[in-house]
Structures are given as structure tokens and as C-alpha cells.
């Protein structure tokens, strides 16, 4: 082991942090090297006199000031989280309502279009049903829809709606 390597390990040698093998290597080098033995003595002396310069006492109220700032920060975070949750909830409600309205409108439109096509395709058998529906529709004030006749999706929807009202 060279002096440079031995001296770099002196610190951990003194603190007993070396492995057994490393400790043995450094020990063997120290036994045969006066310069490194002087370095070891200097290290021990240095550690002793460093203690001559203690730090000043910690300023009064140090911990209190930290905890007060942490408390303020925690309250600000809680307020921010509450505002964020409210905003998210409001947006969810608006989006859900809009989606529901759009689905309803799309269903009605599709049904009306299909009903018109069905009526055009087979007018005969649906004539009686149309007559029945006309009465039903007239009772509900939806007479214009009777023109379309047939057992269309729109007719079924309206029948269900009116049945529900009864």
C-alpha cells in the first residue's frame, strides 16, 4: 500500500469503519512508515483542536418559527385542495348533464328519422295501428306526429312516455 492510499484511509481507520482486510493493510503500512504515523498523529490532534470552536447557541424560538410557517402552509394547501375539488365536481355535473341531453336529443332524432322511413316502406298493416296511435297522439296533443304512423322508434318512445304519465 502506498502512502497516498494509506493516508486517505486514516480517517476511517481512526473511526474503525474499515473492513478487517483494509484495517490490516493500513496497520501493516503504518508499522513500516514513519511519515504515515506522523500523519495519523496529526489527524488525531486535528480532531481534538477542532472541538475548540463550538457553534454559537441556536437562536431562541427557532423551532416555533418553523412550525408556524408549516402550519400556514398546511392551511393554504387545504384551502387550495377544497377549491380544486369543488371546481372538479361542478365541471363533472355540467358535463354529465350536457352528455345526457345530447344523448336524449340524438335518440329522438334517430327515432323520428327511422319512423318516417318505416311508414313509407309499409303503409298497409300499419294503417290500423296508425289509427290507434292517432287517437293516442291526439289525446296527447301530438297529432302532427300521426302523419308518420307505423311502429317506429319515435312512436314507441312516445307510447312509453304517455304510458308512464298515466
Amino acid at each position, binding site marked *: 500500500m502506498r502512502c497516498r492510499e494509506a*493516508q*486517505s*484511509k486514516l*480517517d*476511517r481507520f481512526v*473511526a474503525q*469503519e474499515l473492513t478487517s482486510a483494509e484495517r490490516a493493510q493500513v496497520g501493516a503500512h503504518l508499522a513500516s512508515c514513519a511519515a504515515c504515523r506522523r500523519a495519523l498523529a*496529526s*489527524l488525531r*490532534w*486535528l*480532531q481534538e*483542536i*477542532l472541538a*475548540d*470552536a463550538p*457553534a*454559537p447557541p*441556536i*437562536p431562541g424560538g*427557532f*423551532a416555533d*418559527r*418553523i*412550525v408556524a*410557517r*408549516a*402550519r400556514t*402552509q*398546511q392551511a393554504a394547501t387545504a384551502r387550495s385542495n377544497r377549491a380544486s375539488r369543488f371546481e372538479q365536481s361542478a365541471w363533472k355535473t355540467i358535463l354529465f348533464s350536457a352528455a345526457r341531453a345530447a344523448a336524449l336529443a340524438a335518440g329522438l332524432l334517430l327515432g323520428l328519422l327511422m319512423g318516417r322511413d318505416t311508414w313509407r316502406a309499409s303503409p298497409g298493416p300499419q294503417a290500423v295501428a296508425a289509427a290507434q296511435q292517432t287517437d293516442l297522439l291526439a289525446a296527447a296533443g301530438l297529432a302532427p306526429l300521426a302523419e308518420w304512423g307505423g311502429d317506429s322508434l319515435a312512436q314507441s318512445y312516445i307510447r312509453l312516455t304517455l304510458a308512464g304519465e298515466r
Partner: protein
Amino acid sequence: MESSLSDEALMLAAAGGDLAAFEQLVLRHQESAWRTAYRIVGCQREAEDLAQEAFLRVFEARDRYRPTAAFRTYLYRIVVRLCLDHLRKRRPLATDGLAPVDGQLPAEQQAAESERAQAVRAAIGSLPANQRTAIVLRYYEGLSGRETAEAMDSSVKAVERLLARARKTLEVRLGDFFPD
């Protein structure tokens, strides 16, 4: 009342919103955070700001804390990083390169200090920041070689080299006080 919970348990409790647990951590580690910051930057006012900022950083990151390392080492790492960043941003010092060591020590305390103590302070203040940090963590705070390396975000070998260079400088500057 002092808690018997480990640092890591207190930190996890703080992450769950327990401010009293965080306070226990502050009370437990405030002295070491303060001492370390003071010895690295050399100014009491700056050291207080930096040490407080370190604790607040710990508090802000409490939800992300994972006990992969000892809390003590984790705190030292934050203190060291804040101090070294602060020194890099600080205006250039006087031409002798000394940190403003004991700029705010009361006059009577300065007078009471021995010549040797003043020489030690001046010698430590004359070291480059990273060497001074290694000396402070290793010899004043008593961290192991591995803990010092973790706190400095460095390797054990790199810390050994820093300490070896720092010791050479200190031995030269404090040579008058070394026994023959």
C-alpha cells in the same frame, strides 16, 4: 412531551397531516441543522434562514418521503445543498477568501475565545466550501464516511480525497498549535 417514535415514523405521520409529529422532528434535529448550516456558511443570520428553509423543504416534500435512507442523512443532504447553493450565489468575499466567520458573535464572546479557537475558525473558514462541508459533517457532526458521502451526494472515495486535502490545509494553518 418527547415522542418515542422513530424519525421515519414521525415523518410518515407528518405526511398524514400530523403537525405535532413534524414539530417533534424539528425539536429533535434543530441543533444539528443549525450547527451544520452555521459552520458551512459562517454567518448566524444566514444559517438560521437556511436551516429553517431545510425543515420547510422537508415539510413540503412529506407526501413524497420514502424511508430509503435515515431521516438524519436526508435532512443533512437538504441542509448541505441549500448552504452550498447559497455560497455559490453569495457576493465575492474579502480578498483573503475567508467566509464571514463569527461576523455576528457577540464581542464579549469573541474576546473570550482563545487564540487557538480563533485560529481554528479562521482556518476552517479558509477552506473551499466542499472541503469545509466534509470537515463539518465528518468531524463536527460525527457522520460516518458513508453518511458524509450520502449527505454530500458524493462517493466515499471522493469524500476521503476532500478530507485529505482539507486536513493538509488545516495542518499548515494550525501548525503553530501542533505538538512537535
